[in-house]
């Protein structure tokens, strides 16, 4: 069921064109303010480690909350009811997990000039196979994440303009703009545009909630509908739902905190104080984003009852459409909402692309292929490989393969397997390199196998089974293996950074 949007067509095109132009202007501004950006890896990929509180906060925010948060979460809340309230605490868990490793990681990043998550793994383990395996897992997970964003951009643009802009044109337009501003200004461009994108997203979801409360009935009306038609949507979770709730808190909490593009932002903070203040702000954002879109989904239960699963996927479009028909203010507010949705998708994609390129520049080309190359050359290679990857991913998005499509689904399941090396490595000097490698590899294989086979033993997600095996091998292997004094001393030199 396609929703005929009252605000599609030319007003949608106008907003998207203005938005694209604004992003490009920000990229050019960042480039002109800092022409040396192409000469230094630090400058290009980390904004010279100089991001201030507001920019750092918004780049964390816009990277963490993607377009799927706005478009995908309300339909899930519509179908599951209050069982999906878990989306609020799981975003808070991400910040809690950060606190378990960010303080030390930031300090080590300053001391050793770390640039990427793989950089940290190489410093800690000094093992080519661990470094390359971690780089491959991160590039693979990031590639799939980027692919998902490209598909969402095309669908979003096509949906917003009522098909006036075809799917392919929307994808190419925004990807060209995204690559252009990222190419010009690196992390500073991405962070500045993230600030604009974050504000657009916040304005959009809050307006959608206010409009829904005024025109589409509030939570009491939704509760009456649920009592009459689906009381299970109001009830406290039981059995399998409790397991799912627990798994989501753990999987999202750890998985999203060690997303390579989120992890890398810790190195970009101007100071420890800046990073701390950004985290404090982030701790309350789930209420203003996940909480708000959750309420929108619940209100939809009474506003648009009895939708099928496929129809419910269009819920945000239906609600925006109903509001746009009310008056001129909500008409333009809903146009801006959809501009904000596209902005949220692009702001996640640009961060992923930048981190993808940095791993190529610094960790593969710069470490193993041409370690003596100029930094400007390493940056150029990272950019070119990034653009080549984008072209391949766009082709996959346009012509999805009939078979083996599941290999493009794996991202969280794979990325989370780097957690023991990234986090345990910070604190445990005995952690054995061989055990880390075997754990990471075995965890990935198990998670992938369970995902492909559709297995979820005990209702626990495949990524968590992989992580459990990974941890057992990692910790068990380190405890039973001999550890040389030289190995421990080197580890302590790296992680015992306090004077």
């Amino acid at each position, binding site marked *: 069921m396609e929703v005929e949007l009252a605000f599609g067509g030319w007003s949608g095109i106008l907003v998207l064109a203005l938005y694209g132009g604004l992003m490009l202007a920000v990229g050019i501004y960042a480039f002109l303010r800092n022409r040396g950006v192409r000469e230094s890896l630090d400058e290009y990929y980390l904004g010279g480690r100089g991001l201030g509180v507001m920019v750092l906060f918004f780049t964390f925010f816009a990277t963490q909350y993607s377009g799927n948060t706005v478009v995908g979460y309300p339909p899930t809340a519509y179908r599951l009811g*209050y069982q999906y*309230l878990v989306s*609020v*605490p799981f975003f*808070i*868990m991400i*910040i*809690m997990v950060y*606190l*378990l*490793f960010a*303080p*030390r990681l*930031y*300090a080590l990043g*300053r*001391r050793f000039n770390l640039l990427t998550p793989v950089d940290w793994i190489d410093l800690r383990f000094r093992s080519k196979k661990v470094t390359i395996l971690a780089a491959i897992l991160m590039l693979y997970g990031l590639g799939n994440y980027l692919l998902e964003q490209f598909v969402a951009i095309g669908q979003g643009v096509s949906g917003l303009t009522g098909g006036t802009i075809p799917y392919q044109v929307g994808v190419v337009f925004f990807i060209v703009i995204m690559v252009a501003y990222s190419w010009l200004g690196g992390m500073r461009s991405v962070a500045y545009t993230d600030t604009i994108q974050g504000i657009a997203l916040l304005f959009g979801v809050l307006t959608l909630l206010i409009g829904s409360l005024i025109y589409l009935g*509030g*939570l*009491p*009306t*939704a*509760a*009456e509908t649920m009592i009459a038609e689906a*009381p*299970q949507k*109001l*009830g*406290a*979770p*039981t*059995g399998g739902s*409790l397991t799912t*709730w*627990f798994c989501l*808190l753990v999987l999202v909490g750890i998985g999203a905190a060690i997303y390579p593009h989120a992890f890398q932002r810790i190195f970009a903070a101007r*100071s*420890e*104080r800046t990073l*701390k203040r950004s*985290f*404090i702000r982030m*701790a*309350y954002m*789930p*209420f203003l984003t996940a*909480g708000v879109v959750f309420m929108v989904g619940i209100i939809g239960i009474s506003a648009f009852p009895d939708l099928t699963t496929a129809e419910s996927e269009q819920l945000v479009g239906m609600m925006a459409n109903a509001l746009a028909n009310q008056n001129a203010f909500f008409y333009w507010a809903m146009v801006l909402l959809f501009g904000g949705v596209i902005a949220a998708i692009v702001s996640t994609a640009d961060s992923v692309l930048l981190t993808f390129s940095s791993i190529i520049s610094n960790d593969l080309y710069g470490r193993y292929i041409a370690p003596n190359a100029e930094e400007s050359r390493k940056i150029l290679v990272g950019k070119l490989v990034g653009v080549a990857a984008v072209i391949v991913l766009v082709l996959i998005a346009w012509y999805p393969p009939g078979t083996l499509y599941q290999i493009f689904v794996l991202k969280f399941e794979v990325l989370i397997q780097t957690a023991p090396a990234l986090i345990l490595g910070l*604190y445990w000097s005995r952690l054995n390199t061989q055990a880390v490698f075997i754990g990471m590899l075995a965890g990935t294989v198990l998670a992938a196998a369970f995902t492909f086979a559709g297995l979820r033993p005990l209702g626990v997600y495949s990524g968590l089974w992989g992580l459990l095996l990974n941890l057992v091998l990692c910790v068990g292997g380190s405890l039973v293996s001999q550890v040389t004094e030289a190995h421990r001393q080197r580890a302590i030199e790296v992680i015992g*950074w*306090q*004077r």
Partner: protein
Amino acid sequence: KRISEPVRKPLVWIGFVVLFALINPWYFPAGSWSPLVFGVPYWALIILLASLALSIFITWVVMTQWETGADEDEEL
């Protein structure tokens, strides 16, 4: 210098474990939803309050338990 990392503080771990337990809805009778408060099931409000408590706890941890002096290292 005073060096402080949240991960080394027993109080941080105790607070985290307690709040993690509270943001999981295992302690409510299965399927219960009455009373409704402003149209919201009572258990959902308690989960939201526990989530807010976790956000406040994070603020407290960041403000009082995290001081590595990493930037001073650079200046020395």
